[in-house]
């Protein structure tokens, strides 16, 4: 089924089209929700809520371009996840910084980030995904919004109702923590095995 047919079918609440849309896009969107909400049960709830929003509001989507359509669904999923985080993790963005301050090791790589090129390529997306998922909620959210979605700190601050500086700090800490995790893999020689 072409994307145009798929959208039209979903607009008319045809079960076949809805089913196909689910099969086609649910894995991608589930990954998105898992990136924001690390817990798989919560991620499932987020995805379900997002998909219902998508099915209900697909009539308002006027374009029939595959890419634009995915972007629209992606945006809905991200917003649903953020709503969920806002609701359940109130004030966590501020408190977590202090909590994890001491957890960030000081011996993170001081050298150029460029060394990660090969490492990250070797780690693979699944491991990296798990690592991002292990970041604290506040770090992970800001990291996702900034790095993956491409939002500015100003936009992130507005979305999460935090200050710009908090956003910057969280991103900095998130990067460092992620690097330390990668460093840990290298130190444990697990990467060597992979390589």
């Amino acid at each position, binding site marked *: 089924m072409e994307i145009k047919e798929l959208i*039209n079918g979903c*607009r*008319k*609440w045809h*079960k076949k089209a*809805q*089913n196909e849309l*689910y099969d086609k896009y*649910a*894995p*991608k969107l*589930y*990954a998105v929700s*898992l*990136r924001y909400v690390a817990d*798989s049960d919560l991620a*499932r709830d987020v*995805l*379900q809520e997002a*998909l*219902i929003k998508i*099915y*209900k509001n*697909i*009539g*308002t989507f*006027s*374009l029939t371009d595959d*890419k634009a359509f995915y972007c629209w669904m992606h945006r809905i999923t991200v917003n649903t996840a953020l709503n969920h985080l806002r609701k359940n993790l109130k004030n966590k963005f501020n408190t977590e910084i202090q909590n994890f301050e001491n957890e960030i090791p000081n011996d993170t790589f001081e050298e*150029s*980030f*460029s060394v*990660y*090129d090969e490492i*990250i*390529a070797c*780690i*693979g*997306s*699944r491991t*990296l*995904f798990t690592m*991002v998922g292990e970041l604290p909620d506040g770090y992970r959210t800001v990291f996702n919004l*900034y*790095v*993956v979605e491409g939002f500015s700190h100003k936009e992130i601050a507005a979305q999460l109702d935090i200050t710009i500086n908090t956003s910057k700090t969280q991103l900095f800490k998130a*990067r460092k923590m*992620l*690097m330390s995790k990668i460093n840990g893999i290298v130190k444990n020689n697990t990467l060597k095995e992979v390589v």
Partner: protein
Amino acid sequence: MKSSEKNFDELIKQQLGDIEIQPPAPLKKQLFGKLARLAFFRNIKRYSLFVTLLLLISALGIFSYNSIQKTDSSPKENNGFKSSTYKADNENNNTAAQKIQDITFNEKKSDATHNENTSNDHNSNNTQALAENTTDFEKNYKTEAEYSAAKNAVVPIKNPSLKTHDDNITSTLATSAPGTPTEIHAEYKSNSTDLNNSLAVNKSGTTLPESNNTTAAGVQETNKTIDYSANVRTGFAISEMRSLPGHINTENTLKMAYPEAPVNKMHQPLLWSVGLNIGHSLMQYPWTRLPENTDDDNYHYSSTLYFPSITAGIDIRAEKRHLFFDAGIQYARFTENIKSDNILINPQNQQFYNFTGQTMNVDTGGGSYHYFWICDSVPRLLDSVWTWKIDTTYLNHYDTINTKIYDTLNHPEWRNSYTFIELPLSVGWQYNFGKLNIGIKTGPIMSLLLGTKGFVPSGRNEQAYMNTLNSEFKKFSMGLSWQVAAVVSYFISERMLLECQPYGRMSIKGVSTSSGYVMKNNSLGITVGVRYFF
């Protein structure tokens, strides 16, 4: 450091961007269960307007019907009168219902006709018999008003010599109320020869004089119809008693028989008829408002009526005096002819290159950017990259302009047709002028979309595509419109008439699509048909 951070972020983004994880299996089941429930409630919400309207109209219809029935029910209380000759009053046959109600009942001598009985002796037992029937009479008066009317009935007395008897009788009636007229009649069969006026009873049992009878006083009684009210019945009862032998003379009897009776009122039953009709629009507004563009790419649409835009249906009518209710079902197929000036469709993004005098358009749809080089004065494609990965250092050499090109439809013309099953309901009023009836009716029409044929241009501005109507409008969608029609009908026989109804209908709720099109029926037309009365 900054660029390294960027690089690091980019690496992460690349890794995380396209990752796919299969969601747990129960989620799908759970989700579609929820969607099914949502679809159910969505449908309820969607059709609630129609259901509510239908219920409202049904309730109104039932209420009206009951009201009519209620007014008709009172004559049925008294079955004691035997029918006599009755002819409906010509003055009152205004409507079709009245026309057809020129029903002649079998002529029959009424039991109420008094035979010879000229005995002047007043039998006191008769009075007692009246008194015994008091209870029955009370029961026959359903309402208190009727009962009090009976009690307060005034009996004019002309013969002073009979005053005592009259008083006795009247007082008996007034205080204890006499028995039913039938019973009275049974008790007092008089055969007064003076009383030649045969009493006529209308269809409902109301007593009235036979036409052209001359009373003893020489008064010509015309055809009278009498309202079957408590007063009349009381009057009749009294007159019966007064016509007892030796007590009341005939002159008084007739006058007393109809003391205060209003004339020219008759009971009319609900009249049913079935009509077949066919109609055609004479003028219609565009069914769907198509997206017009008044920017650089000027185009607009004009819609005109096209054959066939017909309706054909059957309806059932219930009418009472001037008022009538119609309910029916009709097939409707409307067609419109759409014309436009040039429509630009299928837009494509292209880049315009000027290579030292040579120009070239390159399709950039899909977000690709193309690198070229010129070999032997011919631009050749070197490489295509995503637009966001253009190395801008190579772009300064050429003057590139982004353009959008279209396919052009030159003065396209096409026809769209829409098929419905419609349920018209209406209430109307009509008046009779001889064989001609003229009236007006109004009411809602519920339309169920069965199918569509044709095209609509999709896209508001530049993204114009010609979509088929079937993909836009969902089958079995409901719409609602309101119709006002003039009713002109002519009797071609006693039970059949020809009808002509010029109408105007206006859409209240059109059939809409998710992409913004709304199909509305605003039209003027005419229907013709025949109607048969049962």
